[in-house]
């Protein structure tokens, strides 16, 4: 954003100016110079004509100019207004839906926090959680609306000690915050109460046009009862706790942001799984050295792993076989992602392996980066593809001396590469992956295969969309709200311009 336009596009709260969805179009306001220049040039560059006498002309002009000159100025103003209206319309002004008092505060609450409040056990509650819950009770007592960070930002009107309505838990808090940011008056302050899933986003929080007061409550600080969870509580017998699975997130320092999203999603998935299966995850973070070479033997300390890892996110250069053997138990699940931008992974070929199963399609990545596929000799199968058929996640089962399952994301676990990590489908998918490798799980989640037909074939069913097609997007809705009057103004200005010009 240009520093010249930044005050306009992100105005101070006291200005009360609208923001814009496509602020780049505001540069089109420079087109206002065109009629102004034409007007000035037409005044300056008149052709000179010598006549015998200007006596009659001066009489006529003095009468005519009084009538014409204001018309010219009016025409100039109308033309400028017309261009400005077109530019502003293309920029997509987002007018606040409501006009609250400038000192209004929106209390935005993570539904998971309310759910955790409803399942608090009898243990002593830490002060961090007490403060958050006290704020909730105070808001309820003073009548301050409690808006849930959920689709449509519903206002929670029940008792804060009871469970919230069955709103699916989501890690997609960013989009909800952005939506609230667009809806609220620029002068409105935000107060966000959320589980410490947001702590993983620290430093990665969205840039909003207002000041936001964050209050994150660590998951561990809430003493949950046996049926505590992010999902809405459902009655049922508590399950015996099984052997915890060990999850490792290994990352280089430059990938710490990616690791933050993965860990947040793992914790969220663990909460959801815990209620269902009773098993928990032991989560280990490990910072890999920033060596440009592949991790050598000993990079992962054997002594530090008294248990082998069931699930490993390897966010860095491709792990060596030795590192994997040390870190991952046979049959464990390794998840890697692309070091390269997504756009670099384009040379993909579609092959049909299962002739008897037309719904199964496999994809081979012919340009696998870092030799991660060629050395393992595994065969990639596309699990998820995007709407264009491009592979987002592929899987393989290695046949080398250290067999393990491997999932490879052809993108990075970062919103800059894929919005997926900020959507609720991401922890859900992790929960399914964990279920698939957890022998204690009663219903091992089965990762469904992308069975979308080739282009032109009818689609038998829709599988695992990365983005909910019905997901509400705030910006288009805001644009639609503000566009009709602007287009009507443009039409009126156009009619006025023609009328004045041809009069």
């Amino acid at each position, binding site marked *: 954003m240009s520093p010249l336009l930044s005050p306009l596009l992100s105005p101070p709260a006291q200005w009360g100016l609208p923001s814009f969805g496509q602020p780049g179009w505001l540069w089109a306001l420079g087109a206002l110079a065109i009629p102004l220049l034409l007007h000035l040039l037409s005044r300056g560059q008149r052709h000179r*004509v010598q006549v*015998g*006498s*200007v*006596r009659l*002309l*001066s009489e006529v002009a003095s*009468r*005519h100019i009084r009538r014409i000159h204001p018309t010219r100025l009016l025409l100039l103003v109308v033309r400028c207004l017309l261009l400005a209206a077109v530019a502003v319309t293309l920029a997509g002004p987002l007018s606040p839906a409501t006009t609250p008092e400038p000192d209004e505060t929106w209390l935005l609450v993570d539904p998971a926090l309310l759910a955790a409040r409803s399942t608090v056990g009898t243990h002593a509650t830490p002060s961090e959680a007490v403060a958050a819950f006290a704020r909730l009770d105070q808001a309820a007592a003073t009548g301050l609306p409690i808006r849930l960070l959920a689709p449509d930002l519903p206002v929670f009107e029940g008792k804060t000690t009871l469970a919230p309505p069955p709103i699916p838990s989501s890690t997609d808090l960013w989009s909800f915050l952005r939506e609230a940011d667009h809806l609220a008056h620029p002068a409105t302050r935000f107060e966000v109460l959320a589980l410490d899933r947001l702590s993983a986003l620290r430093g990665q929080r969205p840039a909003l046009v207002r000041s936001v007061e964050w209050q994150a409550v660590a998951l561990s600080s809430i003493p949950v009862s046996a049926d505590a969870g992010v999902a809405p509580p459902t009655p049922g017998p508590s399950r015996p706790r099984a052997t915890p699975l060990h999850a490792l997130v290994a990352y280089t320092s430059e990938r710490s942001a990616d690791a933050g999203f993965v860990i947040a999603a793992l914790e969220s998935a663990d909460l959801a799984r815990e209620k269902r299966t009773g098993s928990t995850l032991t989560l280990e973070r490990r910072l890999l050295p920033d060596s440009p070479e592949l991790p050598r033997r000993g990079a992962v300390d054997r002594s530090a792993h008294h248990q082998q890892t069931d699930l490993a996110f390897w966010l860095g250069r491709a792990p060596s076989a030795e590192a994997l053997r040390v870190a991952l138990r046979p049959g464990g699940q390794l998840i890697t992602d692309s070091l390269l931008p997504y756009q670099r992974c384009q040379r993909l070929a579609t092959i049909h392996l299962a002739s008897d199963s037309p719904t199964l399609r496999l994809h081979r990545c012919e340009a696998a980066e870092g030799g991660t596929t060629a050395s393992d000799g595994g065969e990639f199968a596309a699990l998820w593809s995007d709407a264009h058929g491009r592979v987002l996640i592929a899987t393989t089962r290695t046949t080398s001396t250290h067999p393990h399952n491997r999932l490879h994301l052809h993108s990075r676990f970062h919103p800059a590469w894929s919005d997926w990590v900020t959507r609720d489908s991401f922890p859900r998918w992790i929960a399914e992956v964990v279920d698939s490798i957890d022998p204690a799980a009663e219903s091992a989640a089965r990762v469904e295969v992308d069975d979308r037909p080739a282009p032109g074939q009818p689609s038998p069913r829709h599988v695992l969309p990365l983005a909910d097609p019905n997901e509400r997007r705030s910006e288009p809705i805001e644009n639609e709200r503000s566009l009709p009057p602007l287009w009507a103004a443009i039409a009126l200005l156009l009619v006025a311009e023609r009328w004045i010009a041809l009069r």
Partner: protein
Amino acid sequence: MTPRGVNAPAAHLLPPATLAALGDLRLATRHVVEGFVAGLHQSRRPGAGGDFLQYRFYQPGDDPRRLDWRAFARYVRETEAEREVPVRIVVDATGSMAHEDRSGSPAIVKLDYARYLAAAITWLADRQGDRVSLATIHDGRVETWSGRPGGRRTVERILHQLSTLQAAGGWPDDEQLGVLLEGAGRNRQRQLILVLSDLHHATTPSDDSAPAASRRAAPLLQTLSRLAAQGHEVVVLHLLGRDELEFRYQGELLFEDLETGHRVRGNADQLRPLYLVRLGEDLAQVRQQVLDCGASYQRIALDQPLDEALRHFLVSRQEAR
């Protein structure tokens, strides 16, 4: 100079712009006069002194050839003797006469048109034996040249003065215009006074801001009135360009007054309707002012062929008599 029903063949109607392109006043004037004379020869020319006046008794000493034998051989057919009519040509050479009419192709300057018309009249008058004199008005003063009838040098001098005349300055005051009165009143012979002018800044009162009742008439109109009162025949030939009459300008223009230097901005297309209405009113007013002075008025457009303009002038003058 008493043609009747003259109509020149179209071949002789040379456009003024073409004459101007000749660049030679003598040659151009000859073209005009020859075209004019060719038209005259097509009609019956009664000849000087041919008009019947009265009968009277024969007296000793009368020429027997003048006896009308059909009237009992006692009467002498007395005809109107041909009388000399001095012609005075007044050419307006003020700044506004430098106006160039670009409506035709090529363009013609208003003073050039006046120059050729004055030269043609000079030639015709001299050919008929009339005394011709010239008065020019420019730079706020009046200059006159006259000569003897039939004198070759008189025509030469007038043509030379016409060819070297330059448009400049404005109209003279009353005192300067008095020169015209002096020249006309030197002998009491009736004169034909032709004024070739665009009449810009000539018919408007000098003090526009004064009340209408106390406003004095323009010096030129006063002079014309006095000349007509002295019994002279005064004819005003009002020269106007086609672009002045029809306002053929287009677009945003800066109009500059050739005489005063005043400037007026305006869009010609937007000014045209109002201008034409105002021009019509103004021309009617000017014509009436001239007629009120006892003078004749004829408007000539610059795209009108010179010999045609000359012929129309003579025909209208004859009809007026």
